[in-house]
Structure formats: C-alpha cells, structure tokens
C-alpha cells in the first residue's frame, strides 16, 4: 500500500465525465482535486451539445461492450438520485424507437434481445394503435415501435454546472481557460501537468478531456495509436410554442454508427430534432459548424417521427456538437502502472452522458484497486446543491413574496423567458464562486435568458450592462462567448486614424 498524506488529483476536462469524477472524489478525505478546462466555463465541449437523453441501455450489446452496458445501466439509475440531489432539470418520459418497414422492425426487435440480456425493465414492442395512444404526435408512416419506459431527458449543460457547483462546495478547485499542454512524467511516475498557466503538480492525472483525450494520452506516453474521431452531430431547435411537441422521446431505428435521429421536447420546452452523425477529419476537433445538408437531413428524418414538422421559419437555433468516437467504439478507461498516476477516461462516446455518474464511481474504485489506495469518506460531504430561484417557474403569489425580499426579482430583463435581474446577478455570483469566467453565454445557460424566440436580441445588452456594473468593467469588455461584446467606444477608429 502506498502511503500518502494527501493525494493530489488533477482532472483534465470539466465536462460531464470530469465533473462527475470530481464530485465522487470530493466525497473522500485527504484528496486535493483540481479540475482543469481550456474553456472559460464548464461543460462547453461535447457535454453542451448532445441529445440530452438518459438511455435505457437496451441498445448496448453486452457481448461487444460489456463495460458500456454495465455502466450505462448503473448510470441510468444513478441519474435519478443525482438530479434530485443537485436539482438538475430532468424528466422520465420513456422512449419509442419507431419502425416504418419490416427491415427496421427486425432491427428494432434485435434490441429487445439486448434489453433482456441487460435486464432493462419494461422494454416491449408496441403496435401502431398503441403507439398512437402512447404518443399522439407520431408520424403517419409508423408501423410500431420498441418502447423503453426508463429513458429520460436532462439538461446536460446544467448538469455539468450543478455537479461542478456541488464539487466546489466540497472543496474541488476549478481552473478555467487553462490549456493542458502535456502530462509531465519522470521515471515512470506522473509529476503533474504543464499548462498555459504553468506547471501544476499532481500525483494522479485523470484524462477526461473528451475530444482531445487522445492527444493528452499521447503526451503521457501511452496509447500512442489511440485516435479519437470527431463525430459531428447537428441539431435544430424550434420555438417552444410550435404545435407538435412529443411527450415521449422518439427516435428512428439505429444503425451501427449512430443511435438515429431523435425528436424530443427538451426540459426547457423546445422541440429539438437531431443529430446527424458525420465523421470529420481527425484534426477537425473544433469544427462545430452546421450545414445545409445536415439540417435538411434531420428535418427529413423527423418527418417519419412526427405527424408534422414545423416550418423552418420556427427554428430558433441550429447547433452542432462533436462526439469523441474511439476506435471500435470502445471506451478507454484505464489506470496505468506506467506511468504511475496516469488515468485515461477517454473516448467516452454515447452513452457517455447516461453513464457519467457510474463511470465516475468506477474510475475512483479502479484507482483504489490498481494503486492499492484506501480512500476514507468525508464526514462533512454535502450531496446537495440548490438550483437558481427562477421567476419563470413561480406563481405570481410566490413572485410577489420574492420581490418583497429582493426587488431585483421584480425587474424582468429577458422578456421571452421572464428572467429577472436578481437571477442574472445570482448567476454571476455562482460563476465567480466556482472560479469560472463570467460570459454572456454562461449567464444564458444558467438563467435561460436568451433561450426564447428573440434569441437574446432584446436582453443581451441589458445582461451585459448588469455584468459590467457588477464586475466593474466597461460594457464593451463583457465577454460574449470567447471575445468581447464590443471593440471599444464609438470614436476609437477615428482616434486611431488620427
């Protein structure tokens, strides 16, 4: 047994996997945890732009991917506790894998077999008539569906925020805008990470860097052949008042490369359709662009799923995410003896979001077992995190009471989603508390200001003003996503010209 006073752990990547590992580790004594991310805020990689499904796990073949199947199932269970403890927006409507011809039906029925092997409860085939009762919004071409009642939908970006907030409350430190260049290794041991902010010592480095996990692993000198392919998924999001909003999760029959196209009503009430599945060149790790073809494809597939697809003029946002696709779809979860202290949690493709809490438990256990370390539970660990107080979720009576205590709840800055000044200020404080950078996007994901039909054209400057006042910086220096809201004052170019 290796004896250490304190174990210093650096987690590279504050996505859903890294954050979950940080949360689990924060429940143990004598561990110093540093969560590092290159972005200004947490969860801005694959965790932000995905289908947001907690899978039932009847699509995982335990003969090919035993670990994926096991952790997916466990994750589905754990999320039910985590969303309660951390107040993450979630719902559990179940899903319908739609088939429209006999080939698709045959494939769908194969998943019934996998469901039995994985012991996924309640999975069964429903005929057209029952399907229409379960989900009146299904398309007219459907023959039936494979029903899996344990599927859920969460808000993935809020999940990461909630987990990190909880982890920070329990002592985890976060470093954002910090680019990890290299894992420093000497005589078979990890010494720490070299970053854009300098060298950071660590006994254990956990690589949860998503789309970049191959590169980080290479710098530690392991898995040199391991390559992550960026698989792009494009989505379209419709306004919340379109008239076709399915209650259940609907998706087309999967093919090996992808779980198919989904049509869901998000936890925020928008119809979302997607994704595509397009393998990009290995170095296109930043290509989050949407395409005309991608948008057309998901809309076409959605016509199978839904009785009608709203017109394109009702689209309020198009976006894309990159999924880290490892060779053979195999997750690389490994604790290394050489170099001692290096841990890969890499290539966590779907069902990574579902499995994340279970992956975190598994990784911590694996570290304990491999390195023969016995971690002791903290007595003081808090498993709870409170969500923001939101005017949009409250009755008028409750809002009146809120205003009595704090008049800022009575000043609404986002008209579309009824977001108050108090909420914006609370979000700023929460961002500062975890140690992330205050950005307009970060405020948007925490308050929903800008999620509505105007997409922020009414409220962005009002929120920027609040940030500028609160942080004491000029309005033009408020950061949107990665650059400033304005380049200077209106006369700056004339001054430069003179």
């Amino acid at each position, binding site marked *: 047994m290796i004896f250490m006073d304190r174990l210093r752990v650096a987690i590279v990547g504050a996505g859903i996997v890294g954050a979950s590992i940080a949360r689990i580790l924060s429940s143990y004594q004598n561990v110093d945890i540093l969560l590092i991310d290159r972005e200004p805020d947490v969860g801005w990689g694959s965790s932000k732009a995905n289908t947001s499904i907690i899978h039932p796990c009847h699509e995982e073949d335990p003969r090919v991917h035993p670990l994926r199947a096991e952790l997916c199932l466990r994750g589905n269970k754990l999320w039910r506790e985590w969303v309660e403890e951390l107040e993450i927006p979630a719902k559990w409507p179940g899903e319908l894998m739609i088939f429209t011809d006999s080939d698709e039906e045959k494939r769908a029925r194969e998943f019934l077999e996998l469901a039995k092997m994985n012991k996924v409860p309640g999975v069964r085939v429903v005929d057209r008539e029952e399907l229409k009762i379960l989900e009146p919004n299904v398309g007219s071409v459907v023959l039936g569906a494979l029903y899996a009642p344990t599927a859920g939908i969460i808000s993935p970006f809020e999940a990461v925020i909630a987990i990190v907030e909880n982890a920070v409350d329990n002592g985890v430190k976060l470093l954002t805008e910090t680019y990890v260049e290299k894992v420093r290794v000497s005589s078979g041991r990890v010494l720490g990470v070299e970053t854009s902010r300098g060298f950071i010592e660590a006994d254990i480095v956990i690589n949860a860097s998503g789309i970049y996990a191959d590169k980080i692993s290479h710098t530690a000198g392991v898995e040199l052949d391991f390559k992550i392919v960026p698989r792009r998924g494009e989505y379209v999001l419709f306004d919340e*008042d379109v008239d076709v909003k399915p209650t259940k999760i609907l998706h087309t029959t999967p093919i090996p490369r992808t779980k198919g196209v989904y049509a869901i009503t998000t936890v925020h009430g928008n119809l979302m359709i997607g994704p595509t599945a397009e393998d990009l060149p290995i170095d296109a790790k*930043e290509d*989050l*662009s*949407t*395409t*005309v073809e*991608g*948008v057309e494809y998901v809309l076409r597939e959605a016509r199978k799923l839904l009785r009608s697809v709203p017109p*394109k*003029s009702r*689209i*309020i*946002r*198009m*976006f894309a995410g990159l999924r880290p696709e490892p060779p053979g779809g195999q997750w690389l979860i490994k604790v290394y003896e050489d170099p001692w202290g290096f841990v890969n949690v890499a290539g966590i493709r779907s069902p990574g979001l579902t499995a994340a809490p279970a992956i975190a438990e598994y990784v911590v256990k694996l570290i304990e077992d491999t390195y023969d370390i016995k971690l002791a539970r903290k007595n003081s660990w808090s498993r709870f995190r409170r969500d923001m107080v939101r*005017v949009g979720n409250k009755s*008028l*009576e409750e*809002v*009146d009471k809120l*205003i*009595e205590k704090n*008049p*800022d709840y*009575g*000043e*609404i800055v986002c*008209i*579309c989603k*009824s977001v*108050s000044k108090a909420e914006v200020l609370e979000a700023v404080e929460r961002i500062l508390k975890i140690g992330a950078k205050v950005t307009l996007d970060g405020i948007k994901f925490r308050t929903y200001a800008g999620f509505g*039909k*105007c*997409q922020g*054209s*009414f409220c*962005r*400057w009002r929120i920027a*003003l609040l940030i500028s006042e609160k942080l004491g910086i000029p*309005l*033009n220096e408020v950061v*949107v*996503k*990665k*650059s*400033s*809201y*304005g*380049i*200077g*004052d*209106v*006369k*700056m*170019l*004339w001054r*430069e*010209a003179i």
Partner: protein
Amino acid sequence: MKILNYDTVIIGGGPAGIAAAIRTTELGLKSVFLENRDVLGGIPLQCVHPGFGLHYFREDLTGTEFITRLIDKLEKTGVEYIVKAYVHSVEYKDFDKKIVNVITPRGVLKINTKTVVFTTGARERHIFEIGVVGDRPDGIYTAGEAQTLMDIYGILPGKEVVIVGSGDVGLIMARRFALEGAKVKAVVEILPYPGGLMRNVMQCLIDFNIPLLLQHTVVKVVGRKRVERIVVAKVDKDLKPIKGTEFEIPCDTLVISAGLRPYIDLLEKLEVVVDPSTGGPVVNEYLETSVPGVFVAGNALVINDLVDYAVEQGELAAEGVKIFIENNGIPTKTWRKIRKGKSIRLAVPHMVSGERDVILYARVSIPEKNVFVEIPEIGFKMFSFGVRPAEMLRLRLGKEMFSKLSDNVNEITLEVKPR
C-alpha cells in the same frame, strides 16, 4: 399583491403606446401605461438619424428628438405610467373585464381593466430564422442590438462589417458604422430590389460608397472565436443559392437586419386571430382585435416605415377604447372585409364599417411604375408614379365613399392596376 382598477391598460412604452396613453387620458379615461424598461420611448430613443415626425410635428426630427417631444407631451397630459413593469399575462374574463398581471420591483400588480391596448412593438428576425448555417462565433448582432450599443451606450461592435438585409434599419446601420470609421464591406439583400426607402438607399449607401449586393444571400458564417468571414452566394428566382457562385467576404462583424415581426406573444396567448401576411392580429377599423376590448397599434399591429403612422394608430386605438367603453363594444351594422387584390401583400385594418372615415395601410408585393391603386366597389382610384414594397401606402377613405355601397356587400377589394 396589489389590485388596481382601470378603464384601459396600455402595454408598451414606444411611440404608439405614448400616443395611445396621451389620447386616452385626454379623452378622460382612467388609464395606466406600462413599460418594461426603465425609460419610456422604445426604439426611437436609439435612432439618432432624422426622418421622424414629418407628418406628426411637420418637422424633420431625429428619433431621439421626436420621442423626447412626445414624452414631454405625455408628462404635460398627466398620464399615469409605470416603468420597469413587466406584463406577465393577460386574462380575458368577460367582454368588459380583463386582468393584466404585472411584475414590478415594487411587487406584483393585478390590474382589472375594461380594455387593453397592446403597443408592444416588434422583434427582429435573428440569424437562425433566416437559415444561415456555419459557425456560431461572437460578432453577430441584430441591427437593433448594434444600434443600442452604438447610440445609447457608445460602444462600437466591430470594424469590418457586413449587413444582411437592405431594409431601412439595415441601411441606416450601414451609414452609422461608416460614420464611425468602420468599413462596411457590403449590404447583402436576397431580393432583386432594396428593402428600404429610396431616400435611405441614396443617403446611406450610395453617399458612402457601400456596395449593395442584390439577389445575394449569406450562406455561411466562418469563425472560431469571432466572425472571421462570411460566405455569400447569388440566388436564383426562387431565392435559392446558386451553386458555384459562392465567394467570401472577410469581416469581424455580421449585422442581421432581416426584418421585423410584430412581438405579440401575449396576444397569441389570448388566442387573437393573426394575419400571416402582417404577422400581427386581425383588426377592425378601431384596431380592435378578435378578442373584444383588446386593441393593438404600432409595430405590434403591422410593421410601419414611419413613426408617424405608429403614433396615428396609437391615437386611433385610444379612440376605439373610448367608443368601446361608452357603447359596450364598437357599434357597427356590418363589417366589410378588405380583400387583398392584385399585387397587394398586406392591408390593415382587415375590416371596415363604412360608417366613418378610415385610414388604410397597405403594402404592395412587387415594385411597379405608373399604376392605379383602386378599390373598385367604392370607386376609389389613386394614381401613383411608382409603388414599392418598402413604402407603405396610406389611404384615407371617407365614409361618403361607402354611401353607394349596398348593405349586402361584405367585401371590398384593394388592388394595383396598370394605367
């Protein structure tokens, strides 16, 4: 929660709302005027260019001057108003009873009222609504947002700018950027003709040597952190991009000025009938919607190109409120529908009685020269050297014109005919 009682509640503190509030107060109605922001005035506050008030004040004023004068008049009239007042919902209880639920920093107000006037203005169409794909970097603004930053807060959004849309707002913003020393690389317009007033094309683009790319569209945005360039293509007659005609324009800023839509979320929740051609509610000649006692004016009714029209509509709705309250509804024998005939894209109001004079606002669907604008049923005929979609037609129809119309005619047709 405070409970208040009024004859009318006017929602939205821009020009139409101010005009409606002044008029209802002058007419002796107990009215309250609500604005969500901390100041009255709405969009003209940020319009430092002239062209405001030529009809109403018979002077060429800037938006800021115009609205200041209007607010002065409001203060003198003694209108009761509340700023930082957010209308959460409007409940329809009865023909003469609605409840307006308002959130303010001083608590929630429940306002019982006989009538409501919506002057909530418009919102801008954003980049996703017009189908632009590609990256989603910083440096993309709607025209109104860019204007707020520049002319209220003195912030320059960027220095190499492309503007999408040649409506008046887009043209004016092109000039604003040019005046501050920014390079406006192009104004991109999908249609074969500019969307704004001719005077604005002259004064904002030609005078500043800003290229106008007609029949072009932005197909893609490229940029990691901030906009780096955009890809533009020519479009065919169905407005679809033509393959192979794409070219790039390097820029750091993209301003979307792709048109306005009436912002009528609350009215939609009240289930008013909406006209797809205006995006606003269907109204009668007093600008009353399909929900009794609920009125609408200004850009929430129809996108106007002159502030004077919004003001005129606000006053008209105020008069409608007075008549509604006095008569327990707008008294009319028959409503006659305005049918959109040849080349007419939209017309407001949608229903007229013929019992009083009425002003008709309309837009044509295509530019035409030397034409007659006609309503054959009542013998209305007006010659025009040219009609353009950008320029709203404002027609005054005297009630005497309707006198020869028999009672069973329930539709009159507005149309454009060649000379």
